[in-house]
């Protein structure tokens, strides 16, 4: 439903399906939003960090990226949606559906 909508709408929708590691989330979104560059990857990560600070997404397990799946030797995190994020997503679904 949120395909082609503002990117944070889509991030919430993906995380509502299941918790995701940052590299999985970024991989999905890079293809969908044509952001296939390191810069695009960093932009998507920043969007997720913003959603964490807004209280819609929470940080879960984290580990050091030894395989270089996302950024070698840096911290990678698993993200999940919060109750507030779910409420916001439901509200957005109504708004997007009504367009």
């Amino acid at each position: 439903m949120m395909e082609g909508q503002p990117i944070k709408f889509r991030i919430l929708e993906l995380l509502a399906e299941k918790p995701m590691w940052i590299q999985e989330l970024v991989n999905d979104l890079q293809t969908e939003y044509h952001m296939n560059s390191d810069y695009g990857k960093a932009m998507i990560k920043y969007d997720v960090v913003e959603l964490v600070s807004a209280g819609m997404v929470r940080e879960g397990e984290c580990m050091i990226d030894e395989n270089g799946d996302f950024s070698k030797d840096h911290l990678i995190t698993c993200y999940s949606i919060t109750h507030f994020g779910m409420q916001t997503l439901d509200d957005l679904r109504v708004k997007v559906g009504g367009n």
Partner: protein
Amino acid sequence: MSDLEAIRKIDHKKKVRIGLIMGLLCALYWGLWYVPGSAVWGLDIMVNAKINIAAAKPDLDIDTVHILACIFLTGLNAIFCAFVLFIWNGALRKLPEFRREFKQVRGASKYFVMAGICGACAVLGTYLAASFLSPGFAAIAGLLYPVIGTILSVLYLKQKVSRRGYISILVLLAGGITLYSGSLITGGTEGSLIGIVGGIMAALGWGLEGVCAGKALDVCEPDVGLHLRFVFEAIFWILVMTVLACTGIPIFDTIGELLDPVTFLVFILLGLSFAWCYVCWYKCFPFLGVARGQAVGSLYAACAVIFLVMFSGPEAALGYDSDTMFVIVSTTVLGLVICLFGSYLLASEDTEGMVSLRGDDE
């Protein structure tokens, strides 16, 4: 595991450092904005705009002519901010996201239209306060916006405010009254009532803008959201100025002066400083939390007073003469200190805000 903890700590420290830099840059840009914002009145584009309006409508009094010139300036300010952000978002490759959010009326752009109109009221109020009283007064009057923001968040967003929150609001109000008392004690200059109304418009407008934009900014890209807010403000002012032009007020007559390199540079500086202060402000929130971000950002008033005193001299910056110097300087400085303390109280409340701005709901 210890490695992981160490990396986590470094990561967190890095985020806080970036947040602080962004917050400080916001305060610097915001404070700096008042310098071109007051210098612009000496340029031909503004001087001639007032002369043209007065010549075309001789029945208008001087204050009305000045208010019309303020509308012209506020409109140009919004247009230049929108222009600067087009370059900014173009360079950041965020124009596709701009298109997506623009098209998403109910979920995004509707709120930015409202924020743009409230912001228009705030910026016009600032220009009125700056030109009818002093730029220093305008800068500090804007510090009262958390009062409006907090009242509205209780009434409209149904948020709870702690005792400390209410105490900070009382402190901010005391600071505001101290600031305004200077102009009231000295009897003020001609038109100072309009300046005071301008100060109230600035606080009211920014408080309302925060509430409107806050509804959508959580789920939108801040760079793009702010850009939309300025685009809608620019459209609003273009419509207002077109209506004024249709009534025979020659509001667009001096627009050609923008081709003068010095004038263009001053307006670009206006756009750059104002647009970037907003961008840095919203960029510091994810790293510091809204409360801490606002605390650092509130330093703008101090920056503005310092920059204005440096560039325009204390007399022009604070708007006093030899008779009123003591009262105006003391009430302005005291008002500034009390308001900064009030902002600090309000901001330092959220001690858990380093990761999430809202309580976790696990």
